[in-house]
């Protein structure tokens, strides 16, 4: 149905796509995978007309599309959902969904009731519980992603492109989305599905195309490849272990939460211990209070009940500055917005949380800052021409490494990571994982929030499952399975048999 033939694209001398080809049939879900920088985003932007290729053609049903543009592509029935939610924060959910769908002249009246009805129907279709009247800016990241999906579905496109649609979705929302995708496929739509979560591909995709360094490496039937082979195709080298988990001697309790509660963020009665050298995974469905718990421990939304104990001593945490002083580090979720400061240099970002140690009498010691930043840039393999380059010029995986460096420099005894590998490529992901292992070996107590169950299972020594604002149960590494975690997250008891399988 849709063919991209020998597409070439360079940005100011950098070859983003080299003779890349891609073919999508009607009635299939075609996965497009590759490391960050492989050219996936450029390819789909060329298909949607957002970017003009230097060479090659895009054909739809055998005819080449001349003069492609977002408007032309839309009229031809191509719709896309991009990775970064691009909603209008001041407009309501209903307006956001219907904005691009309405074809009306400038002077025609807005049919508010119809808009709302349509938005509600689309949201219901993907099983999203979101009020169409709420302003989009008030939604959480996963909710924004659901709205984006609803918007893409509303276009009733023949070609639907989904870029990392499940990046921040819970298992439940993911399953709902998959059901809708299958239904669209059966109705004859072609779906391009981009994802870093290789484990979900067998479940949803029919075929898979692998891009590497701007070239098409191979297209295979999903039933004929396994995960390990895909990773090899993507990176062109073999990754020895997907999760580099090492046995580490577990020490004394470092962080202890006793009956911790915070009315403002909806968490209550949280009991949790994280010991030195231990990685505790914090699992749960979106909205269960995982991020809110992290915010409370870091002093951003101070607790109003219960205690936080550090090495056995109760501490009062009411600001991020206090938490940092106590040796707590927090790499937040939405990295692009809050993990790094895009305008500041890499070196300034790395030292921002520990400026006091890089200065005397308030004067920054540039020599030491440079030395330490260069050291971390090398150790974490941050790809950059210079350490004074603004972080905004780096790729996602490298930005995440800068965010991590900032907190490693503080020498934390407790490290809280919220979705540490969300939206970064397989290579960088594996580097972040081995870094976590090394830190645990040095005696850091790590609390890792993740929606990726394989990551939780692969990296954690213990897994705390949250449900409804509190910890439902804590599982040991040996006894934890995806089914058990999901059952607990859904509110079943641990011993109850999991009724819902993944």
């Amino acid at each position, binding site marked *: 149905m849709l063919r991209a033939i020998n597409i070439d694209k360079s*940005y*100011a001398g*950098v070859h*983003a796509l080299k003779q890349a080809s891609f073919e999508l049939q009607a009635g299939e879900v075609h996965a497009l995978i590759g*490391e*960050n*920088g*492989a*050219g996936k*985003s*450029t390819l789909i932007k060329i298909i949607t007309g957002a970017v003009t290729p230097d060479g090659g053609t895009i054909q739809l049903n055998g005819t080449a599309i001349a003069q492609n543009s977002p408007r032309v592509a839309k009229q031809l029935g191509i719709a896309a959902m991009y990775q970064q939610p691009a909603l209008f924060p001041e407009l309501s959910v209903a307006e956001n969904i219907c904005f691009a769908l309405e074809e009306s002249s400038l002077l025609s009246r807005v049919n508010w009731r119809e808009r709302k009805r349509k938005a509600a129907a689309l949201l219901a279709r993907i099983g999203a519980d979101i009020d169409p009247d709420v302003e989009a800016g008030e939604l959480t990241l996963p909710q924004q992603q659901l709205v984006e999906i609803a918007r893409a579905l509303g276009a009733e496109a023949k070609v639907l492109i989904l870029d990392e649609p499940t990046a921040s979705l819970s298992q439940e929302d993911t399953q709902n989305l998959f059901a809708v995708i299958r239904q669209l496929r059966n109705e004859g739509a072609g779906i391009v599905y981009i994802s870093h979560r290789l484990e979900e591909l067998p479940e949803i995709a029919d075929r898979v195309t692998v891009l590497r360094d701007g070239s098409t490496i191979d297209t295979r039937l999903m039933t004929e490849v396994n995960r390990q082979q895909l990773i090899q195709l993507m990176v062109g080298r073999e990754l020895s272990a997907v999760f580099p988990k090492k046995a580490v001697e577990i020490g004394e309790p470092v962080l202890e939460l006793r009956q911790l509660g915070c009315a403002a963020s909806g968490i209550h009665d949280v009991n949790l211990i994280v010991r030195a050298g231990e990685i505790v995974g914090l699992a749960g469905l979106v909205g269960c209070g995982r991020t809110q718990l992290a915010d409370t421990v*870091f002093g*951003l939304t101070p607790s109003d009940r219960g205690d936080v104990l550090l090495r056995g001593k109760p501490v009062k945490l009411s*600001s*991020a*500055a206090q*938490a*940092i002083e106590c040796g707590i580090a*927090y790499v*937040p979720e939405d990295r692009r*917005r*809050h*993990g*790094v*400061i*895009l*305008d*500041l240099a890499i070196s*300034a970002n790395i*030292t*921002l*949380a520990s*400026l*006091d140690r*890089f*200065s005397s009498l*308030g*004067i*920054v010691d*540039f020599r030491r800052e440079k030395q330490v930043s260069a050291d971390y840039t090398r150790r974490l393999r941050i*790809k950059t*021409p*210079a350490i*004074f*380059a603004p972080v*905004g*010029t*780096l*790729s*996602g*995986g490298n930005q995440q490494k800068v965010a991590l460096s*900032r907190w490693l420099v503080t020498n934390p005894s407790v490290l809280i990571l919220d979705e540490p590998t969300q939206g970064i490529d397989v290579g960088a992901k594996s580097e972040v994982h081995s870094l976590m292992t090394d830190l645990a070996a040095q005696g850091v107590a790590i609390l890792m929030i993740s929606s990726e169950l394989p990551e939780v299972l692969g990296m954690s020594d213990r897994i705390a499952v949250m449900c409804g604002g509190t910890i439902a149960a804590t599982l040991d590494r040996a006894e934890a399975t995806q089914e058990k975690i999901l059952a607990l997250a859904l509110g079943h008891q641990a011993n109850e048999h999991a009724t819902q399988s993944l």
Partner: protein
Amino acid sequence: MPSLWAIKQMSMRLNRYKRELSASLAYAGLLAAVGIIAPSFFSATNLRDLALNNAPVLLVAVGMTLVILVAQIDISVGSQFAVATVAAGVLAQAGVPILLLLPLLLLIGAVMGAVNGLLIGMLRLPSIIVTLAMLVAWRDALRWTTGGEWVQNLPANFQWFGLGQRMGQWLIVFASLLVLAFFTWALRNLTAGRRVYAVGSDAEAARLAGVEPGQVTFCVFVLMGALVGLAALLNAVRFSTVPSNAGLGLELKAIAAVVVGGTAITGGRGTMPGTLIGVALLGTIGTALTFAGINPFWEKAIQGAIILAALASDFVWASFSHKKAQKAQMGF
């Protein structure tokens, strides 16, 4: 021969100070043109007068740079300037020793700045509204107290701090440049400077890194006020009477100079040397026109054109760096 790597690093550095460089080039061009048309522009008296007239604007612009760097704005500085000017006159008249005037005026300015700072930094009110209210409030409060009267009968040692013309003039220009030099150094070398950039670039990300945006904003407004106090004192001693309507339009001059000097109005990016060039460029044009024999009515129009040109170059630059960022996003 420099390596490719070194050239790349150099070009990155140049890119960061692009606006400062283009403003300097424009200024050099202006000076060259005036030098050819009317060499008498470069007489010592004229240059000294120029420096003297623009010294208070420079001080206010230094504070304004800080305010804009934290992504705020202060349009009340002109009214603060008037209050501080009258306060300086009244205090001097009342026989306060000349040496005590300096700390007192810094304090008066800082208190006025603190009012803005509390409302904006702590109560999170929008700065454009708060300072608009203060612009009106200070100006009218002053009119009500003085009844529009000028302060006269100042003690003899008030003028030029009793130093005599030549010395006093040097002192004022020198003090302004010293303040500029200090803030240039501080923005780069002090952790406080780093925090200013962080808050202006992304307040929420700064908060998560342990920097309190409210406190930083409060401190910046206090500094802004103190600098206005200093500027008012250094300006007032040039005259034998003190007007009660000083500083009209000062906020616009300062904001324009900061923007022309390359500070991003959205915060997080900009430098003090850029502001110096901005003040110099906008402050020189009027005089330059007179010397070149052009009707000085053009001054405002040309100033406006320069501001627009500066913003336009921002826009071109932003779309260019956006493309670069896109490339970077893809891992190059």
